[in-house]
């Protein structure tokens, strides 16, 4: 029945918890199938067997206490069983194992920011080592979000003003997607992050260098990838149209008017400053809503973005 599980649930079972959930899901699924046919087969049979015949006399059956007790008690027992099974599974998710790696998640419209205990930070890209329990401690800077990793079968709301948490242990190396599962406005469906489950060696390497992928791209390409991954695209368009923030197309080397009345030329220094201190120079007609990327972008990523903006003529 693996094909059925693959149809009804995500193909990847990225954690022990996912296998547990899948087993429960399939058990309830088959229970439901049995009960569904247990209801529908009699219905169809009665409909056919007792279809209208002129003059047929129907019996006056008002109740049958034994039967009614049976069909009250049996479902009740099933429910009690499922309830306890559900709690056992839930506790794996809500109560942590002894030792785990903590990752702090900060959500904002519309990007995910991850921070490791040593201060390493990343945006929309979460690297975790395989077979090591992960403890997510999450908060939001604006509205409700929800960090959902379908392949791990885990999700919990990310709430402004307080922290929420959950645990899971990834068991297979590979790339997964996490999505926002609590409606948060315009960019809700674009608020995705990549979850990379790495081998311990790869993970250690990533922690040191932030990965080596940038070496395989031209700076412009690398910049475009950052544009898509770090959440720039939720506020900046590259086709010349206005969004929450100004477009990037055709601005390089041109003067722009700021909201304090002065004018500035778009060059590398200005672009860098806008990423690190977005509030310092705000383009006229836009609100100061951009979060700072200080400490979130590596040097190679900043250079890529500068090159990408330069290429958008």
């Amino acid at each position, binding site marked *: 029945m693996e094909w059925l599980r693959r149809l*009804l649930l995500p193909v990847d079972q990225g954690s022990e918890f996912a296998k547990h959930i899948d087993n429960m899901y399939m058990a309830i699924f088959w229970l439901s199938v049995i009960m*569904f046919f247990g209801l529908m087969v009699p219905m169809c049979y009665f409909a056919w067997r007792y279809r209208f015949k002129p003059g047929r006399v129907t019996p006056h059956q*008002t109740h049958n206490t034994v039967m009614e007790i049976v069909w009250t008690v049996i479902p*009740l027992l099933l*429910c009690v069983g499922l309830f306890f099974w559900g709690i056992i599974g839930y506790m794996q998710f809500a109560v942590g194992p002894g030792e785990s790696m903590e990752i702090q998640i900060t959500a904002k419209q519309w990007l995910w920011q991850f921070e490791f205990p040593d201060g390493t930070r990343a945006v929309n890209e979460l690297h975790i080592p395989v077979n090591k329990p992960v403890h997510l401690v999450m908060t939001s800077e604006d509205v409700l979000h929800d960090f959902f990793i379908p392949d791990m079968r885990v999700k919990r709301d990310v709430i*402004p003003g307080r922290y929420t948490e959950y645990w899971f242990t990834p068991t297979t190396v590979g790339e997964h997607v996490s999505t926002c599962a609590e409606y948060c*406005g315009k960019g809700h469906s674009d608020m995705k992050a990549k979850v990379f489950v790495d081998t311990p060696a790869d993970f250690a390497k990533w922690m040191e260098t932030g990965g080596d992928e940038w070496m395989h791209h031209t700076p412009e390409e690398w910049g475009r990838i950052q544009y898509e991954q770090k959440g720039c695209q939720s506020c900046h368009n590259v086709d010349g149209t206005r969004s929450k923030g100004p477009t990037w197309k055709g601005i390089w080397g041109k003067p722009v008017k700021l909201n304090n009345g002065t004018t500035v030329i778009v060059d590398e220094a200005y672009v860098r400053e806008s990423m690190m201190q977005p509030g310092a120079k705000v383009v006229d007609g836009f609100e100061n809503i951009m979060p700072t990327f200080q400490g979130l972008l590596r040097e190679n990523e900043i250079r890529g973005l500068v090159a990408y903006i330069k290429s958008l003529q």
Partner: protein
Amino acid sequence: MEHTLTSGNVTADRPRPAKNYLNETTGLWSWMSTVDHKRIGIMYLGAVSFAFLLGGIFALLVRLSLLNPQHTLFGKQWVTAEMYNRFFTLHGAIMVFLFIIPSIPASLANFVLPMMLGAKDVAFPRLNLTSFYLWVAGAALAIGSMVLGAVDTGWTFYTPYSTTTDGAVGLMTLAVFILGFSSIFTGLNFIATTHKLRAPGMGWFDMPLFVWGIYATGVIQILATPVLAITMVLLLIERVFQIGIFDSRIGGDPVLFQHFFWFYSHPAVYIMILPGMAIISEIIPTFSRKTIFGYRAIAYSSVSLALLSFIVWGHHLFVAGESDLANVIFSALTFLVAIPSGVKMFNWLTTMYKGNISFETPMLYAMAFLFLFAIGGLTGIFFATLAVDIHLTDTYFVVAHFHYVMMGGTVIAFLGGLHYWWPKMTGRMYSEKWGRVACALVFIGFNMTFGSQFIMGGQGMPRRYFNYLDQFQPIHAFSTYGSWVLGSGLFLTAIYLLASLKTGPLAPDSPWGGTTMEWESSSPPVVHNFEEQPVFEHEPYDYRHRTVTHV
């Protein structure tokens, strides 16, 4: 009581009175100022049908937006994320607050509940009319909020998004507040009517089960809706004054809003489904020509569902930041809901056993209800189980589940009830042939639209998503095609029902051989329902002395 049943024939067993509630007085003002529960029921029927049309248009737009991941029609992108967010918000808000909540109670029950009790009217006729005009005012405000900067919060108005977003959220919350009082007055009226206006000799356990269902609904309307009203006021005040209750930026607790909201909105689910179940409890014995099995069990299960509905709302918050202790308690209580729902299913099936079943349109809808509600109910078990809920909540699985209950349950039952009482309400028979065709279209279209969403949800497609992964494209497209089939079925229903008003054959007093008291009136009934006060003589579904020879 032992008149021969000549179902389907135009020959009524007594002459039609010349004057009935439709033609006793005429003119627009005679309708607008009426306190006759039947006319108010008809006005409500028109009003909620309009809301259903409006909400349905938004539903089709939502589905059309998701036809392909590029959101293109004829090669051009036609919808943006902002528009999509408004579509689903308006679809949800209109369907829940303007359509489903008042649908069965305020239109069908308003018409038949007093007649089932042998009463001349509801307890407070003018309050009934007030309720209708409050609905109109609420609808006007809701539509006003669409025109004056639409709302994009989702129908749930979760804070802090709803306290900070632009748009006419204030107007929409005001609309919901007013609609709440419309609903309260309806419920209040039915409870008082049931208590005090039963026909001479009719005890509590002599009432038709429809009345039990509507009575239980009224209890929920009275107890839950005020909390919604005050929640909407608090939300409005939070937006204007920033008092710091729901908005976390100023010290509020967004999860508290969800508690307040779901303390109403979970019981509201039962405001929607209990009347649906109540209709099924009428249709099945009538078309099986057999007394209902387990009358008391069904009556008690209606009331116990109403009461249980108040202690399970926390299951909407399992992953929303509710404490583990509360999660466990709410999970346990949620499972209890399965029991009375199951009891009803078993009783309906047993009623069909050894019956004499014919398949006119209302019965087809009743069987569709059993099919769809079984799926809706069983998929609820997935959510009650804490661990599985973590994965499935906030995905399309939830969307599919509650549409199976709300649309597959309530709306299908509403359609069944509409066809069941249409001859009584209008005095005309509709086209049986087109009725069956439309029922089949609705049934197939519905399963295409929402059955497929169980698969998407399980695979991890979150709800309220504008941009989705390409892998879901075929299922989304299939679901959208299903929505067209469903829409065409409903459109067809509207056409033949309206056509029957002009061309339908005259209806007999009791076209289906129903045994409850409303069938003792003429079709359509006279102004005060009965020419003489009916007296309770036999239990509501007594077929012992009736042998049907002809359909």
